């Protein structure tokens, strides 16, 4: 490390500030609150009074969540459906579109634009736009099908309606990531496969796909993150009730509004943290491995 020895006192101060200030931001506003959520999850606190009024009750919140909090298991189930759905439908579709568009066909730009236009809209806005399609009396879908289904309101179908709207956005995002990844694949690899007489699907699955490993990992993490964080669209539709329970919305419900149950909400938040720690580790391993290269 030759550069380091030569640093003057002034430079040392500058370097410390440059890394220190952003670090303080992240620690103070992300890590400390995350740890506090874990700590508060062992307490009962209505949020009034000082820290002294907190009741420490051990694992009772967790016990209550698992046993006597009706929306919890549906929420877990819905989050699982969410991630499963995104993996099974929009992710392969986005990848398929990327493979097709990677062929340098005429009008590729136009097709691409159509598919990733939804990506730049917020999920909240996506929720609103799809309302025009899902509305029971005035929506496009019922008019086309001749049905009278309340797509956003009926607890039997609303999760799927919301998922279709989410997939609309997710597909474009995945397509874009794979398009970038495919551009980076060495053309020589495909050429060699073609000379050997491999079919196109065969080339893709046994040559290109394994090379895309880092991209696959990113897509995996993004899909799980989006599923766990699912909030905006659900909140827009009905604040996460009546068939649309998801964990993120349950946390919000327990803190906003009259009855703020801080300990209870924190336990839900901690469950989210635990789930997310799995993919954080996966992602960090991928990132740091990239650094070693």
């Amino acid at each position, binding site marked *: 490390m030759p550069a380091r020895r030569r640093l003057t006192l002034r430079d040392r101060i*500058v370097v410390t500030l440059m890394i220190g200030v952003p*670090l303080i931001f992240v620690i103070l506003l992300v890590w400390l609150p995350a740890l506090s959520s874990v700590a508060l999850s062992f307490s009962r606190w209505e949020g009034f009074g000082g820290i002294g009024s907190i009741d420490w009750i051990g694992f009772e919140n967790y016990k209550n969540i698992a046993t006597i909090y009706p929306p919890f298991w549906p929420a877990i189930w819905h989050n699982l459906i969410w991630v499963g759905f995104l993996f099974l439908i929009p992710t392969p579709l986005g990848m398929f579109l990327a493979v*097709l*568009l990677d062929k340098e066909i005429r009008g590729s730009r136009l097709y691409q634009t159509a598919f990733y236009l939804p990506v730049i809209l917020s999920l*909240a806005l996506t929720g609103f736009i799809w309302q025009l399609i899902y509305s029971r009396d005035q929506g496009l879908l019922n008019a086309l099908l001749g049905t009278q289904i309340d797509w956003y309101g009926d607890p039997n179908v609303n999760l799927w309606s919301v998922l279709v709207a989410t997939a609309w956005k997710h597909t474009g995002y995945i397509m874009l990531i794979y398009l970038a990844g495919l551009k980076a694949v060495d053309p020589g690899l495909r050429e060699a496969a073609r000379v050997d007489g491999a079919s196109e699907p065969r080339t893709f699955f046994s040559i290109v796909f394994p090379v895309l490993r880092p991209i696959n990992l990113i897509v995996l993490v993004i899909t799980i993150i989006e599923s766990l964080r699912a909030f905006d669209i659900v909140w827009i539709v009905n604040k996460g009730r009546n068939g649309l329970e998801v964990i993120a919305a349950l946390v919000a419900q327990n803190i906003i509004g009259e009855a703020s149950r801080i300990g209870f909400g924190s336990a839900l938040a901690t469950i989210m943290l635990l789930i997310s720690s799995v993919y954080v580790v996966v992602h960090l391993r991928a990132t740091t491995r990239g650094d070693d290269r």
Partner: protein
Amino acid sequence: MKPLRWPRVVLHVFLTVMAVGWLVPLLWGLFNSLRDYDYTGTHGYFSFGGFTFQNYVDAWQRAEFGEKFLNSLYITVPAVVLTLFLSSCAAFVLARFSFKLNLTLLGVFVAANLLPPQALLIPIYRAFREVDLLNSYTGLVLINTAFQLGFCTLVLSNYMKTIPHELYESAEVDGAGVSRQFFTLTLPLVRPALAALTTLQVTWIYNEFFWATVLLSDGDKFPITSSLNNLRGEFFTDYNLLSAGSIIVALPTLLVFFILQRQFVSGLTLGSTKG
């Protein structure tokens, strides 16, 4: 000229059908935003006619979009500037110097970006209430900045690592200190990455919904994305009005997208190809 081949034709037909299908929700919204409510009321939505701009005028007034746009501006601009500046600083130190803790520090930033915001809600809400940041633009700017730092730091430090070390060495010979190296050497060289990140961050922070919903209680301060709800009545909804409102809200991101399309696309993929 290649002869017309069937697989190509099938491919184009497939892509065209998919692309048009993909645009239907947006086009349907645009179409109905331009139609009179009474006209669609009597003729149904499957009709043609009754075109008007009145929905836009009404939506603008009913949802106080003028004011809400300003609110979004007060949150988005400082947050984007602060995020990019702080992450450039952090990325510079992480890419330029190597200490033992380098990877750990990068991990602290990146992992923070991956945590679900909802999991931090309660302590943030309480802390902001204590220090009077609840219901303020400053609070939203701070939390958005903290959240986006990880992604930007990762992308920028990857980018900065491609700057050859010799450049810094010759700058040092010329007597440039660390801060001069940062401002006159590094920042100009990473301009493409900064441009891409700016477009991304503008859309993300402008679109941010969760923190704005939970940290702001005062309707006057809501950014434009959370104020669309004003157009949705409790018992009946004017879909033409709602369409117009949605289009108005989407307009800035669509503009940013079409003007800076190239940066946007490379920005979305910057972090991923290096992962």
